[in-house]
């Protein structure tokens, strides 16, 4: 972490890639502005003017600012986020503070047939997620939370998982998102949602259930690149850490046996028939643990002895977490998320080395992220990722100073419609059914369906307003009048230019700009002021003069069209 501590380009003067910083970022203010914006589009849910000003205040060179910004963001707990929390508090969510025992009592046992109650915990977690993406000052942290939700995906809207989902998000993912992976993994392994999703709650002696064990090795830790199907125990070569370099089905079966008895207090008839065995909490049920010798990653699992059978799972999780394959697998995913769809292998390797060295450090993940963010590869990757629909929606809301307080089950207008359209994009919150989580490459997010449904959402976004002619969610009208108070400045060209700068801030192709101006001006000239202030928010019918026809609505449609531009779809 010398880079962060030093934080100057002088520290980085050695090495090829460092030259890139020097070459490309001679410290002209325009470049500095563009660089700060690109970084913020990449590592947050959208760059706003105030974010860019803050970034620019963090040092005198681009690299200084980048490393200082990263250090601030990675020390997430030191960032005061009370304003965001106040918004969540004000929304009146009922389930986000409930313990697992309360969730179980109220939403599993208490609402077997009451449909919305059962789903309220996942619905409110999803609503709070949008608030945080839009308003939290801990932007990088929130992106890591999203990353780990994908990595440890559970189908949040499943009948069994929805009522306990709050615990998975609040107690497993969020406390550890920039912390230590081993602790994160343990918390996930004990999360009631995961115990249901991958069936480990039913994994017991005499007929183990491999579902969790297999995905644990394939998706959560080692990765399928080191899967040796059908290999016998002992047939896989050893690495320098004394562990087999990969795993086989035989390892899967033995890991499954190690996890037998890791279950949920769900009132199963095998458990004592008392209320404390029906609380929804994790517990280890020794009667279900399968004894006998287990052999995992080239070594026997020590007989548990005093530690109890529960310890076998701890031993194998330790092995997976210090394994080189886990380091590479997860660092490659992090680099794919934050650098590019095909990240440079050298960066994956250097990040993996830190991951492994620091596998017991409480800030292991933050250290690896600091390395990735301040790597030279960041420069090459900027602007190359395609925004997934959630990122698109969050960026639209952030950049238009939207005021939102989302709820899933409180009517159609505006949030019922918002979520309905958003879910059609294929990126609905916690709705990916398979354990591999939402994909993270452009090829999977640029289908006609994703783009068409995203535009369907974006076309509606600026028109969504609170019931009974309440305020619009997006502050298009207010921001326009604030920035351009003089009606003489309301020409189509001025309005398009101001909104392009606000939403994209980088060059767009001239013909696209012209298309926007032509739509907004209609039969007026590009420099002729348009009337935005008569009869807001919709304006007037004016069949004879299209430039005066519902002009404020046309302004909002033009803003939608900017959100649909290719340039807005990149980060």
């Amino acid at each position, binding site marked *: 972490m010398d880079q962060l501590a030093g934080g100057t380009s002088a520290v980085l003067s050695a090495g090829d890639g460092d030259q890139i910083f020097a070459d490309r970022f001679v410290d002209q203010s325009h470049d500095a502005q563009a660089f700060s914006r690109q970084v913020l589009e990449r590592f947050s849910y959208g760059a706003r003017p105030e974010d860019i000003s803050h970034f620019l205040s963090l040092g005198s060179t681009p690299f200084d600012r980048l490393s200082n910004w990263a250090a601030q963001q990675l020390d997430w707990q030191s960032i005061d986020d009370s304003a965001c929390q106040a918004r969540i508090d004000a929304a009146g969510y009922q389930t986000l503070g409930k313990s697992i025992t309360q969730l179980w009592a109220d939403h599993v046992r208490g609402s077997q047939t009451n449909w919305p109650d059962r789903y309220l915990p996942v619905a409110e977690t999803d609503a709070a997620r949008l608030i945080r993406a839009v308003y939290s000052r801990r932007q990088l942290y929130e992106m890591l939370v999203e990353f780990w939700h994908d990595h440890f995906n559970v189908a949040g809207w499943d009948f069994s998982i929805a009522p306990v989902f709050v615990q998975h998000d609040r107690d497993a993912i969020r406390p550890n998102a920039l912390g230590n992976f081993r602790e994160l993994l343990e918390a996930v392994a004990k999360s009631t949602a995961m115990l249901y999703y991958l069936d480990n709650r039913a994994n017991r002696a005499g007929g183990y*259930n491999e579902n969790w064990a297999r995905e644990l090795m394939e998706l959560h830790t080692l990765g399928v690149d080191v899967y040796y199907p059908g290999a016998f125990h002992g047939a896989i070569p050893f690495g320098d850490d004394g562990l087999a370099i990969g795993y086989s089905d035989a390892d899967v079966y033995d890991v499954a046996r190690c996890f037998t008895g890791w279950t949920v207090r769900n009132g199963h008839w095998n458990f004592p028939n008392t209320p404390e065995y029906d609380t929804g909490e994790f517990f280890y049920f020794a009667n279900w643990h399968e004894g006998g010798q287990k052999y995992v990653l080239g070594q026997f699992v020590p007989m548990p002895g005093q530690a109890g059978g529960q310890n076998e799972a701890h031993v194998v999780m330790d092995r997976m977490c210090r394994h080189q394959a886990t380091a590479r697998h997860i660092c490659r995913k992090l680099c794919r998320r934050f650098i590019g769809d095909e990240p440079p292998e050298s960066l994956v390797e250097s990040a993996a080395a830190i991951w492994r060295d620091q596998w017991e450090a409480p800030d292991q993940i933050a250290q690896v992220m600091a390395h990735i963010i301040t790597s030279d590869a960041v420069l090459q990757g900027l602007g190359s990722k395609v925004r997934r629909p959630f990122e698109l929606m969050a960026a639209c809301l952030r950049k238009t100073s939207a005021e939102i307080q989302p709820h899933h089950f409180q009517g159609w207008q505006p949030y019922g419609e918002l979520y309905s359209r958003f879910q059609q994009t294929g990126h609905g919150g916690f709705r990916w059914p398979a354990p591999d989580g939402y994909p993270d490459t452009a090829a999977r997010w640029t289908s006609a369906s994703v783009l068409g449904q995203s*535009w*369907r959402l974006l076309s509606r976004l600026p028109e969504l307003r609170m019931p009974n002619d309440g305020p619009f969610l997006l502050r298009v009208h207010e921001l326009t009048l604030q920035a351009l108070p003089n009606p003489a400045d309301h020409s189509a060209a001025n309005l398009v230019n101001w909104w392009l700068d606000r939403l994209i801030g980088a060059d767009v192709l001239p013909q696209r700009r012209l298309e926007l101006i032509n739509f907004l001006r209609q039969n007026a000239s590009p420099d002729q002021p348009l009337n935005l202030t008569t009869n807001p928010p919709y304006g007037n019918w004016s069949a004879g003069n299209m430039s005066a026809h519902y002009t404020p609505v046309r302004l909002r449609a033009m803003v939608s069209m900017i959100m649909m531009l290719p340039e807005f779809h990149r980060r």
Partner: protein
Amino acid sequence: MKRRSFLKSCCAAAAAGALPGMAWVNPLLAGTGSNQDVLVYLYLRGGIDGLHLVVPYAGPERVAYESRRGNMLIPEARLRPISPQWALHPRAGGGPGDPVSSTPRWLQRLWLENRLAIIQGAGMPTHLSRSHFDAQAWMDLGTPGNKNTSQGWLTRYLQQAGPLPPALLSHAFGFASTQPLALIGANQAFTVSNAQEFRVDGFHWSWHETNPDLNGHQGAHHRIQNLWQSGSSPLEQAGRLAAEALAEMRNMNFADYQAEGGAQYPSSALGTQLRNLAQLIKSDAGVVVATLDYGGWDTHEGQGIPNPGNPNHFDFYGNLVQGLAEALDAFYTDLSQSLQGNLMNRVSVVMLSEFGRNVTGNQSNGTDHGYGNVMLALGGRVNGGQFHGQFPGLDKGSLFENQDLHTTVDYRQVLAEALVRRLGLPISALEQVFPTLDSYSPLGVFQA
């Protein structure tokens, strides 16, 4: 003339598409039907337990089944026999309240009419993975053992296909929200999860297509294509396809489609997608290949034992089977009973899954990942009502790793046969589509 202007001149015809049997014909075909065959690749995601769908009913395999199947065993009396030795899961031919003796419906009916074929022992004999994601990727890409292939098997077929009739949108439809792997690398493939909601309609300025009272008015949705002009990045190319698709799909009026032959599509995603596909086929929109997914088969727990005749008995697996059976029956009925003729004579559906499941259930009344499995084929030119391939055997010596059904048929042989016999692909082109398939050995599932 460009497609767009063609379409506008055909508005009246498009409206007529809402009438049964009067689907408008692709204007690019100048009024003549294409007669093009269509291959539907329906993937049963999650690893369907084929031994629970096609079940030994009598004979030595039944004896072995009873000795090994554990708590997943289905008694003979709860099965619907389709041959002296084999039976279907009862929900393939009737609802939960129907006794097994009730009139066969859905998949059982299609079997009796010789339109449904069952392929035994299918899978990837050359490679083993019990990982959903690897096995699915290998199969979808058509390259077992390699998931870094840049193109799906259907993508490579499209490259090898001879001249195809002009397509309104695309020759390849993926019914999914994100691009299916079987079509990955096909820039022209069109992916949509729900055709009738695929329209940009949020603008105030998109209320009217044209409004005679407003001189020069044009809705904002007409501008999207212009916004994506220029630029050659993959994103921009994909955006142009999406923008064009939005414009063309808007004209097809999917919401008002009326099925023929009394077909009742279930309201599920699969039912909706098959209904959309039927409309595209009747419209001669140029669809040659389509992919669909029907998931939920990863039954590690609570797989369920059927109890036909008892409408209140919950059967997770049975509900999935019925959902599949009803949707396919509707699709078949709608197309085969069309006033345009029996369109199923040029439509073939192939169903497969990434692997079968462990023969002996686990302790949670479910089954873990296994190996060999069944495949199904449905169509007017399918040699149905019969078994193909070879059942790998449930006796101890025949099992794979002492626990799973083995594979006797490479799934690619079935797909290759469909390409050759139904889509007219030259045998010599197969090595481009399936580069590691050593020989072509058709099983006789499809009629040439």
